[in-house]
C-alpha cells in the first residue's frame, strides 16, 4: 500500500500512563511528532492512564479504530499486544522495550524494539563513579521492575569498573508519582555521603534531581537528555545533571515508521538496539563537558568502542 501526504499512514501510540514524565513516554511521543512532520503519517497519542485495568482496553480500542500501526511499550503491554495481533492481523504493531517470542513464525505483524540500555548505563556509571568525591553513589527506583533493573545493573558494573571500592546504595520509592518523596530520599542519601544520584523513577526521580540542584550535588538523568529538557526553564537544574542514560525510543520509532513506509520493516522479528545502532547512549552535552573531566571522557569514548566491539560484556537482566 502506498501512503502519501493526502493518504497518510495512521499511527497510534498507546501510552500506559500519561505524557509528561519527561523521559520515557515523552521521548516516544517526541519521535512520533517528528515523524508526523517529516513523513506521510498521521499520529494519535492515546493516554491510557495509570489504571492497569484500562491498558488492555486502550490498546484494543486503538486496534479497533482501524489505525494502520499501533505502538506500545514494555512488558506491561506486550502480552496484550500478542493477544490482539491475531484478531487484528491487518494491523501492524510495534512494541518497544520488550519482545514477544517470535519462534516458529509467530506474530508476523509485530515488530519488537529492545534496547541494550545497560550498555549506556555502564558508561554513565563509569562517569558517575569517576566524578564522585565520596566514593558513594545512590540509585532511586520507582519500583524494582525489569526495565528499571536493566539500568541499574549496567550502571553498577560501570561504576565498579571506574572504582572497585565504590559504594552504591539503592532505594525503592514505590511510586513514580511522588516527587516530594524522591526528593526526601535523595536528601537522605546525600546526608549519608552520597554525592551522585541516579534516579530511575519517572516523576519521583524529578524530585531527586531537584534535591541535587538544591544541595549542590550531581545527578544522572534517565531515558531522555534531561539536562536539555531542563536547560530552557531551569538552567540551575540542568547544570547538575552530568549526563543522562538515553534510551532513544523516539528515534527508533521514527526509524521503524520510515522502514514501514518503505515496506522493508522486519515485522515478526526483534530489533536489539544498542550503542552501535545509536539507539542508546549517554548525553554528551555541554553539562557533560563541564562536569566530567577530559581524561574520563576520553576513557568513556574508549569504553564505548570496546562495548560496541564486544570486548566488554555488560550485564543485562534480559
Amino acid at each position, binding site marked *: 500500500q502506498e501512503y502519501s501526504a493526502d493518504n497518510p499512514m495512521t499511527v497510534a501510540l498507546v501510552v500506559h500512563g500519561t*505524557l*509528561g514524565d519527561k523521559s520515557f513516554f515523552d521521548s516516544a511521543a517526541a519521535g512520533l511528532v517528528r515523524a508526523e512532520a517529516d513523513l506521510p503519517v498521521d499520529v494519535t497519542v492515546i493516554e491510557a492512564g495509570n489504571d492497569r485495568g484500562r491498558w488492555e482496553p486502550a490498546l484494543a480500542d486503538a486496534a479497533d479504530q482501524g489505525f494502520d500501526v499501533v505502538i506500545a511499550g514494555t512488558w506491561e503491554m506486550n502480552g496484550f499486544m500478542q493477544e490482539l495481533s491475531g484478531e487484528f492481523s491487518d494491523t501492524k504493531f510495534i512494541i518497544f522495550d520488550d519482545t514477544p517470542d517470535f519462534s516458529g513464525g509467530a506474530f508476523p505483524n509485530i515488530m519488537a524494539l529492545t534496547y541494550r540500555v545497560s550498555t549506556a548505563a555502564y558508561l554513565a556509571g563509569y562517569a558517575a563513579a569517576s566524578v564522585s568525591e565520596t566514593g558513594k553513589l545512590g540509585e532511586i527506583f520507582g519500583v524494582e521492575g525489569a526495565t528499571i533493573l536493566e539500568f541499574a545493573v549496567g550502571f553498577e558494573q560501570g561504576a565498579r569498573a571506574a572504582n572497585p571500592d565504590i559504594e552504591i546504595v539503592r532505594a525503592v520509592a514505590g511510586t513514580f*508519582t*511522588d*516527587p516530594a518523596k*524522591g526528593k526526601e530520599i535523595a536528601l*537522605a542519601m546525600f*546526608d549519608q555521603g552520597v554525592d551522585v544520584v541516579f534516579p530511575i523513577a*519517572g516523576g519521583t526521580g524529578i524530585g531527586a534531581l531537584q534535591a541535587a540542584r538544591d544541595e549542590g550535588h550531581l545527578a544522572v538523568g534517565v531515558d531522555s537528555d534531561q539536562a536539555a529538557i531542563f536547560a530552557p*526553564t531551569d538552567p540551575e537544574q540542568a547544570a547538575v545533571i552530568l549526563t543522562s542514560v538515553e534510551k532513544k525510543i523516539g528515534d527508533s520509532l521514527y526509524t521503524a515508521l520510515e522502514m514501514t513506509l518503505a515496506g522493508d520493516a522486519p515485522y515478526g522479528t526483534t530489533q536489539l538496539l544498542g550503542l552501535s545502532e545509536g539507539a542508546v547512549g549517554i548525553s554528551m552535552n555541554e553539562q557533560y563537558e563541564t562536569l566530567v573531566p577530559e581524561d574520563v571522557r576520553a576513557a568513556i569514548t574508549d569504553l564505548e568502542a570496546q562495548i560496541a566491539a564486544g570486548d566488554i560484556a555488560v550485564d543485562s537482566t534480559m
Partner: protein
Amino acid sequence: MTDLLEVVFSATFLITVIRASTPLLFATLGGLISDLGGALNVALEGMMLIAALTAVVVSVYAPWYVGVVAGMGAGAALGAIMALFHLRYKADVILVGFAVNILAAGGTVFALSLATGGDKGTSINLQSKAIPSIDIPAFEGIPVLNFFTGHSALSWLAALSVAGIWYFLYRTPRGMWLRGVGEYPAAPEAAGIGVNAVRAWSLVASGALAGLGGAQLAMFNYIGFTRDMTAGRGFIALGAVLLGARHPVGAMLAALLFGLFEALSIVMPGIFSWIPGELVQTIPFVVTLLALILFSYRTQRAERTLS
C-alpha cells in the same frame, strides 16, 4: 543499628522531620479547627492537593508568598463550598468531603493539563517558585542551635499557628464560641450565636490551613506539582487530629510523630537495604493505626472517668 542511631540524631535528620511534619501539621490544625466546630473534615487530602496545584501555578506568575496565599485561598474556597453543601443543603459532611477529594483527584490532573498545555503528570515545565528557608548562619555548626536553622518559612508559621490557635481557642470569645458549637450547638444557638456561621468559618479556616499544608508540600518539600502528590497525607492528618486529643499542642506532637516516621521510612532503605521498600513504606500507616487504637483506648477510659 548504630548507623540508624547516628542518622537519627543528626541535625539534618531533625530538619527532615520538621520538613516532613510541616504539611501534616497544617492539615492537622485544619482538621482540628473543623472537628472542634463539630464537622469532621475528611476533605483535607483534596484541599491540600488543589491548594498545591494552585500555589504552583500562581507562583509561576507572582512572588512566592502570593503563591502561598493563593494556595491558602483555594483551600478556604473549598471549605466554603463544603460549608455551603453541608450547612445550607444539609448534606452529610463526610460525603461532601469525599466529593471534594474526588474532585481534587481528577480535577487537578485536568487543570494541570490545561495549565501546562497537555501535561498530565508533573508541572516541571512551569517555573514555579519556592518558599525560602530561613537560614541563620550564626547557628550553623553549633550543636543544638543548628537545629534552628534551615527550616522553611512556613515551618515557623506552623509553629506560630499552634500557639495562635491555642490562644484563639482558649483565650478569646470567638474560640469559646467554636468550642461551644462543637460540643453542644443548641447552647450557642440559644445564646444568639449563629451556629452555622461559626461552623462555616471553621470549615473555611480548616481549608485555609490545609491549603497552607499543600503550599508547603509543593513549594518547599518539593518544588512543583505532580498528580496525587499528597499521597494520603490528608488522611494521616485526620488520624493525627484524633490522636492529638483535639488540642493544638497534641496536634503538633502527633504531626511530629508522623513526620518522624515518614523521615525514618526515607532513611531506612539506605541503612537496612534488605527490608523491602514496600514494607518500609507501610511504616507511617502502621504507626497511625497503632497510635489511633492506643489513643482511642486511652480517651475511652478517660471519658468514662468523666461521665
